[in-house]
């Protein structure tokens, strides 16, 4: 057991699972309140977990281990990275339930159950310490999402869920094969042990590619991103929030947990594959976002571009890059979630996602306009919001890895501003000349609360990101220590002028020291 004396992680998995089961047998309204209650309990447990997490303590904390059969065991435990991603999940969940409060009108108990089940599975992904347990959570998490799109989605939901399914299936089969090989080679299913295992470099490439097939789809990376716009467009609002907020982060988490530390040589070898796809993604999907007429599609494409900041940061092989990627994951989870909520708010009123149907909302929905502006600016990466801290660090890291990558990726800050402000113009500015738009009321208390909570955290992350960086610092250090041997090195190679001067030129920042304690 762990220091707390009770299995908190199992409890966090159990609460929504039990609630999901109960939900199926109660009335609509009870189901709503039950779901909200259960997610709030998990949020409270999450806050407690964060408070109890010992920064600078052992790498894996709150460890639980109960052998099931063979080598397969109920092994849970988290490091700082998993902790922050669990926090993201438990924070967004009550907001998702609130967002679905009145917009979901049929099969409400089933809907709430699906969301609660998803929460269990998402926390499970981040907490799993057994590779097969991870696989179950990772893949099973898609089933409730698939149901949410397929049952409560829009008119084209069948096509969207089919696409979603097809892409993810391909990746998961390859990943499973790779996992089997690894367990066979290392003789264990324990992730902490596998993290210490040095796989032969010649096998690494194939293993890396197998995992990549799965993670690149989840993230998603160009060119396996086309499921995302359709999935988002068809999903109900809360589905989009969870999809963008947490499910897209599974790919990034996979890179951090498996690809980089387990296959460092392969990661270095395939550096240009990742960087190349990311650079294409930033320019390509940003331009596509510019011409979208559907709000959700626009934000979906912007997500693809933002996720590319995650990959360039992770594969930069330095601290700023990786910490930046992690902050991008957290901040994008909040900001894109909030942007989808913003779309949902006006979709609930006018039942269209077509941008041109709106305009001038600043007049009749001023509170909405302010919050939407804040999230737009956070998406654009304005300093003072979490988006900036993440983008800045990951681009800084990318520059240290290769100036070309940073040069191309940084164009994203120009294009991002263009498509987001163009969207904001068409929705919130202009004349309020459409009667049905003018009749839309401003945010109600429930909507205001949801968006304000997210806004507060986005600003907190932008002004004092130390709260979020500190728990992850040692774990990034551990990761860096693991991959440093394969670091391809940057392209700068400063050469001093003829007059020799013993300057401290080497700042590669990959100091694997755990002594950089936070604040």
């Amino acid at each position: 057991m762990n220091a707390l004396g009770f299995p908190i992680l199992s409890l966090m998995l159990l609460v929504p699972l039990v609630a999901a089961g109960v939900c199926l047998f109660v009335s609509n309204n009870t189901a709503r309140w039950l779901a909200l209650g259960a997610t709030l309990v998990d949020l409270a447990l999450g806050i407690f977990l964060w408070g109890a997490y010992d920064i600078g303590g052992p790498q894996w904390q709150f460890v639980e281990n109960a052998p099931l059969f063979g080598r397969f065991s109920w092994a849970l435990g988290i490091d700082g990275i998993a902790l922050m991603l669990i926090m993201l999940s438990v924070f967004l969940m009550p907001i998702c339930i609130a967002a679905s409060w009145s917009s979901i009108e049929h099969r409400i108990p089933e809907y709430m159950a699906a969301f609660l089940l998803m929460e269990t599975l998402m926390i499970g992904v981040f907490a799993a310490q057994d590779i097969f347990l991870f696989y179950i959570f990772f893949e099973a998490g898609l089933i409730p999402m698939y149901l949410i799109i397929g049952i409560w989605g829009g008119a084209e939901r069948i096509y969207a869920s089919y696409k979603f399914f097809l892409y993810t299936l391909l990746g998961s089969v390859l990943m499973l094969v790779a996992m089997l090989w690894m367990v066979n080679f290392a003789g264990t299913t324990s992730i902490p042990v596998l993290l210490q295992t040095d796989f032969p470099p010649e096998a690494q490439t194939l293993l890396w590619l197998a995992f990549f097939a799965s993670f690149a789809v989840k993230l998603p990376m160009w060119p396996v991103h086309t499921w995302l716009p359709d999935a988002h467009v068809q999903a109900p609002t809360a589905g989009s929030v969870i999809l963008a907020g947490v499910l897209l982060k599974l790919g990034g988490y996979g890179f951090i947990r498996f690809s980089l530390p387990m296959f460092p040589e392969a990661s270095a070898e395939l550096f240009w594959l990742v960087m190349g796809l990311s650079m294409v993604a930033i320019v390509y999907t940003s331009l596509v976002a510019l011409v979208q007429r559907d709000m959700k599609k626009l934000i979906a494409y912007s997500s693809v571009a933002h996720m590319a900041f995650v990959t360039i940061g992770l594969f930069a092989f330095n601290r700023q890059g990786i910490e930046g990627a992690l902050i991008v994951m957290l901040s994008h989870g909040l900001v894109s979630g909030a942007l989808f909520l913003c779309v949902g708010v006006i979709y609930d009123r006018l039942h269209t996602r077509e941008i041109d149907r709106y305009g001038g909302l600043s007049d009749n929905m001023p509170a909405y306009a302010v919050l939407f502006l804040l999230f737009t600016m956070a998406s654009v990466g304005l300093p003072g919001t979490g988006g900036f801290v993440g983008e800045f660090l990951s681009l800084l890291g990318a520059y240290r890895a290769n100036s070309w990558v940073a040069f191309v990726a940084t164009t994203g800050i120009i294009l991002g501003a263009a498509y987001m402000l163009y969207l904001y113009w068409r929705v919130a500015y202009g004349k309020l000349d459409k009667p049905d738009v003018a009749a839309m009321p401003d945010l109600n208390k429930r909507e205001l609360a949801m968006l304000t909570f997210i806004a507060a955290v986005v600003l907190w992350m932008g002004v004092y990101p130390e709260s979020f960086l500190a728990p992850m610092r040692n774990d990034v250090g551990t990761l860096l220590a693991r991959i440093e041997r394969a670091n391809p090195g940057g392209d700068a190679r400063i050469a001093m002028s003829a007059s020799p001067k013993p300057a401290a030129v080497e700042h590669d920042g990959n100091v694997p020291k755990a002594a950089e304690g936070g604040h």
Partner: protein
Amino acid sequence: MIQLIVFLPLLAALVAGLGGRAIGSLASKLITTAALFASCALSWPIFLGFMSGNYAGGWVEPVLAWIHSGDLRVDWSLRVDALTAVMLVVITTVSALVHLYSWGYMEEDPDQPRFFAYLSLFTFAMLMLVTANNLVQMFFGWEGVGLASYLLIGFWYHKPSANAAAIKAFVVNRVGDFGFSLGIFGTFLVFGTVSIPEILAAAPGMAGATFGFLGMRVDVMTTLCLLLFVGAMGKSAQLGLHTWLPDAMEGPTPVSALIHAATMVTAGVFMVCRLSPMFEVSPTALTVVTVVGAATALFAATVGTVQNDIKRVIAYSTCSQLGYMFFAAGVGAYSAAMFHLFTHAFFKALLFLGAGSVIHAMHHEQDMRFYGGLRKEIPLTFWAMLAGTLAITGVGIIQVGGFAGFGFAGFYSKDAIIESAFMSGTTTGGFAFAVGIFAALLTSFYSWRLIFLTFFGKPRWAASEHIQHALHAHDHNDPIAENAGHDTRPHEEHAREVPTGTGGYHPHESPWTMLVPLGVLAIGAIFAGLLFHGPFIDAHEGAEFWRGSLAFDEHLMEEIHHAPLWVKLAPAFVMIVGFLIALQAYIRNTTIPARFVGQFGILHAFLFNKWYFDQLYRYLFIIPAFGFGRIFWKVGDEGTIDRFGPNGAAALVAGGNKLTARLQSGYLYTYALVMLLGLAAAATWAMAR
């Protein structure tokens, strides 16, 4: 104290912005304006403290940790030194006056709390920029002022032209920020820190070093300085990235005075001065700064001579004066650049606020062709603008023998720049000097043209749609319609004769809230040069004042006193020539402009269309961006990836459309089954071992 100066405006912005609806217009205005006057009152003692040498090298006040990642350590902190102190008084003074002025100017606007909140927010961001002790906080302020600028340009968001201008400003500035960002990344890579004092201390050691950048082997300091300078070019609207500034005039006029004349657009100049020890290491970068500055000074002055919109004339004038500041920095006269920034803040804010007073009097008409003869109607505004014009054109008498010289603000600062360029002794310095002289002629011409068209001659008000609107629809008070009216009339290519006549309209002088700021700024425009040229540009006093907060060149500042007499007299000479041409063309023989246009139509069209930059960028960037977006979407995503990916798979499996019917039940089942089978296999295998 510095904390109060910086955070009072933020606090006021939050109260007015978030609580404006609850506390009402008047309270919002009171709170924001009071906060700014308090900030201003606290700033002057700091500035005077530096003038008297009490504060010496300055200090840094830590606020909070910000981004710590490995050896990157970025903290929130407030740096105060002489350079910051100059900016503090400029920002808080102009901002406080603009707040006050807006009481009158925005009186009829229904959205006043929002307006004042934006103004205060802007002031906060600008103060964070100038008190930054590291490049990242400077970038925070940089982007913060960009946001405020975006919000204020688009303040009247019902107007499509205002929205377009706001986006243009933000995106063009982002192009600059692209360079700035890469500059910060590179600086960190090279120096291992983003702390400004540490970078400046280490910069000389990097002289001659090279590094790899985009596959090339390049000089470290030149590359870093040029990347950072791209940021400065964006914010300070230098040639190439200037296109947003004239359009930014869509914002309310007080905004133009504060943001697009006195403060934000000078941030680039401030940045180059702040980092001047870095630029000093790279002569190549300084050459580029000089050439870009000189080219901008010339370009904007030429365009300014043919504009009809009173605000656009002043906007191009600002752009041109910023060019002066940059080429001053480029030739190493950073103190002269800062001095011009300081005096320019007063007289340019004055000109803009004066223009605002005229526009207010003329019922939101901005086209000077419909002005004329306003001297007698709004005399106080006239005298204020006259002071501004005397300052910008640099009227003054040089010190000869025992007679003490006297000059308006621009006389000291602009002449110092022109003389520095000459005395720097470099080829680019000589080029900048020649351009500076010619641009000074144009400056004088367009400034007097503005005065003559607006205040002299016969009234030509009757033909104005705005005046018509005022005369016939005055009873229904609809400020939105006023604001919206201007962009409906297409810009006219050629100067045409506008019939004279008042149409029975009586312009009225502005209220005291608008006149007091004009008066204060007029005093600044008259005396700022005389009072402050010592500490700013005198060789000895300057060294005492700046104390290393910028790369002060004592030698050059001494040298300019020994410039040949013809160099000293040249600016005054061209100033008079410009005045005389304007007098001839706009007072004595008013047919000259039309004849000029007839004779040199192509030249006029070239200038009138701003050297066709907007059209060029439209075809180079905007249309291709949308075009590629559509191609990537339709041909890339839908035509290729989907066609051969998921849709192709669907066709293979089920022969097309029939598939969809079976998807919902069928595929979920398959999916779960595959996963379970895989797991079962894994578990079996694990148990069997």
